[in-house]
């Protein structure tokens, strides 16, 4: 289906009252998740997914809502950065620098408005990019067999590992741990139970949503409980919301540059919104005529990271919807969602279920308009959430975490698993072990293993068969390069290189 016809079909679906409502609720919940410091997009999507599934919502509507939560949270993350200098998400860290400086100068209103407008422009352009890039990529990926699929997943895992934490070895160790978790339960190819230790509850393996809620949501709650429960209170007053003519003039190229940077980085597995916002800010500072003013409250310093983190979300949808390859932990949960809804992620998704694919794409246009309309007048409401003491918010976030966990399989064993992974995730944070590779590897692991074993069965156990398939071989070479590249550069140049580091990519 060509993009124009596809989008027509998509809008027909996305504009139905039910789907508009789902997009609206998703945008509201997403913004709230972004605003609340204790809960991020990974946890939000992981908690909502079982609730949506249990409510027997139509898959397209469910996915529309989950996607809206994903990009809505990027909008919301900026509010806390600007008002209280506390990023709601890791991807809003850069917005703190100039956003909070603007708020201190009494320009919180224009900073918030610019964050919303930059997100809108970038979000919309990114969907356009997704729409244009998806069909050719889908066509290309249609020829993929088990060799290519396995190699693609290896590449996805290695690039994430490369960018997910401060230490590549720690991230690799976490990816291996995630893959191992994926092997628990009955082996789908031979029917042999693995690592179940006679426990019936483990026969179905670890559910990725339970693990994600534990590693992200509960671990975050434990970290917050461990640190101070007192949070800074907003002192800024919101006056004149609209940016001035000078502001508009200053950001006219910033928006475009940051959108392109964000989108391209978003499509890369592992890089995601956080790296995109760091890069966009750095590049904006470099091309600026007055780089020394960055950090003192310039509007480009708000527009660049906010545009980049939103277009990265759109960019992340490209490999997710066309190749079935998630580029971040949140995207991994969305991939799991596509599986749960009974669809097969990958190039066939757009062909077998055009209504699902294009409905979600079209809803992203609508969602971005909704977020713009919602966020400008509702800024005061979101700010008031921040006035609630964290000691009161925390137990209620615990409540939603518990409901989300139980709703996955209606099984109390899952609550034990969630708590255990929460404690593990908290310890991992203490020692700088990234959680994103665990979730990504847990989601991709079973498919990676199946494709790997199918490929070897076809080639009768010949491991060199991966090198005979040109696409698979290229992908594997890229995977190896993504891991050893910094070492090679260091050997050639004789000094260490600086790699942009994502804190905890959502």
């Amino acid at each position, binding site marked *: 289906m060509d993009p124009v016809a596809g989008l027509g079909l998509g809008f027909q679906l996305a504009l139905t009252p039910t789907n508009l409502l789902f997009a609206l609720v998703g945008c509201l919940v997403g913004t709230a998740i972004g605003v609340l410091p204790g809960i991020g997009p990974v946890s939000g999507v992981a908690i909502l997914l*079982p*609730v949506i599934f*249990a*409510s*027997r919502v139509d898959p397209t509507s469910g996915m529309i809502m989950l996607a809206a939560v994903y990009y809505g949270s990027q909008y919301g993350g900026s509010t806390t950065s600007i008002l209280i200098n506390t990023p709601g998400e890791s991807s809003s860290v850069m917005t703190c620098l100039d956003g909070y400086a603007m708020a201190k100068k009494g320009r919180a209103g224009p900073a918030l408005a610019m964050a919303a407008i930059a997100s809108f422009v970038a979000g919309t352009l990114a969907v356009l990019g997704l729409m244009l890039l998806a069909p050719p990529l889908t066509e290309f990926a249609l020829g993929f067999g088990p060799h290519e699929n396995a190699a693609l997943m290896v590449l996805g895992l290695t690039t994430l590992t490369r960018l997910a934490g401060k230490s590549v*070895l720690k991230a*690799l*160790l976490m990816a*291996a*741990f995630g*893959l*191992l978790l994926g*092997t628990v339960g009955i082996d789908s*190819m*031979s029917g*042999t139970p*693995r*690592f179940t230790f006679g426990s019936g509850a483990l026969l179905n393996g670890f559910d990725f949503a339970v693990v994600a809620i534990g590693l992200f949501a*509960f671990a975050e*709650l*434990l970290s917050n*409980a*461990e*640190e*101070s*429960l007192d949070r800074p209170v907003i002192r800024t007053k919101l006056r004149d919301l609209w940016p001035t003519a000078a502001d508009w003039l200053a950001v006219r190229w910033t928006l475009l540059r940051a959108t392109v940077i964000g989108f391209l980085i978003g499509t890369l597995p592992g890089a995601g919104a956080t790296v995109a916002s760091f890069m966009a800010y750095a590049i904006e500072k470099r091309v600026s005529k007055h780089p020394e003013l960055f950090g003192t409250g310039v509007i480009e310093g708000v527009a660049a990271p906010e545009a980049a983190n939103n277009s990265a979300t759109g960019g992340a949808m490209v490999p997710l919807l066309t190749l079935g390859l998630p580029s971040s932990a949140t995207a991994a949960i969305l991939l799991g969602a596509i599986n749960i809804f009974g669809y097969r992620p990958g190039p066939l998704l757009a062909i077998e279920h055009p209504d699902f694919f294009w409905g979600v794409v079209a809803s992203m246009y609508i969602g971005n308009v909704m977020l713009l309309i919602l966020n400008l007048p509702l800024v005061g409401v979101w700010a008031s959430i921040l006035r609630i*003491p964290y*000691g*009161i918010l*925390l*137990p*209620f976030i*615990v*409540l*939603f975490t*518990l*409901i989300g966990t*139980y*709703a996955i399989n*209606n099984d*109390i064993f899952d*609550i*034990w698993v969630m*708590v255990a992974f*929460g*404690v593990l995730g*908290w*310890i*991992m944070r*203490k*020692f700088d*072990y990234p959680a994103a590779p665990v979730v990504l590897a847990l989601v991709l692991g079973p498919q990676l*293993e199946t494709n*790997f*074993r*199918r490929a*070897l*069965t076809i080639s*009768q*156990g010949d491991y060199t068969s991966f090198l005979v398939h040109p696409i698979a071989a290229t992908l594997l070479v890229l995977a190896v390069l993504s891991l050893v590249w910094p070492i090679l550069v260091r050997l050639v140049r004789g000094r260490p290189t600086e790699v942009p580091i994502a804190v905890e990519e959502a």
Partner: protein
Amino acid sequence: MAVALALLGAFVLVEASQLKMTSLGGGPGPGVFPVALGVMLLGIGARLAPAALRERTEFGHLRRVAVLIGALAAYAALLDRLGFVITTSATIVFLLVAFNPRRRPWLAALGLAGSVGSYALFSSFLKVQLPPDPWFLWP
């Protein structure tokens, strides 16, 4: 952490060696992937272990962390016996009171209302299956 994962890798190797390494079609069996992962965990874990043993981290309010973990463990243990409404209300009210030194009666009422309200929203309205209370006090 690295030491624990290296030990896990060793354990996985022992366990996985009991699985079949080849399948009937000539391809790899269910044991190949776990063995590879065991080697990876053991190798990288051992490589990181010396540095990991020297790592130190600072801890904040460990009592609050223990309270939160303990409350959720009690929740999981009692949920089956007491049902959703009672267990959840008790846990949320407990956490609200434990984490907030002031206005406790008001917070307790808020916690109760929040738990009952969320049951109504998720179970009755959204049809999410939640554990019923043993006495069927809630329809």
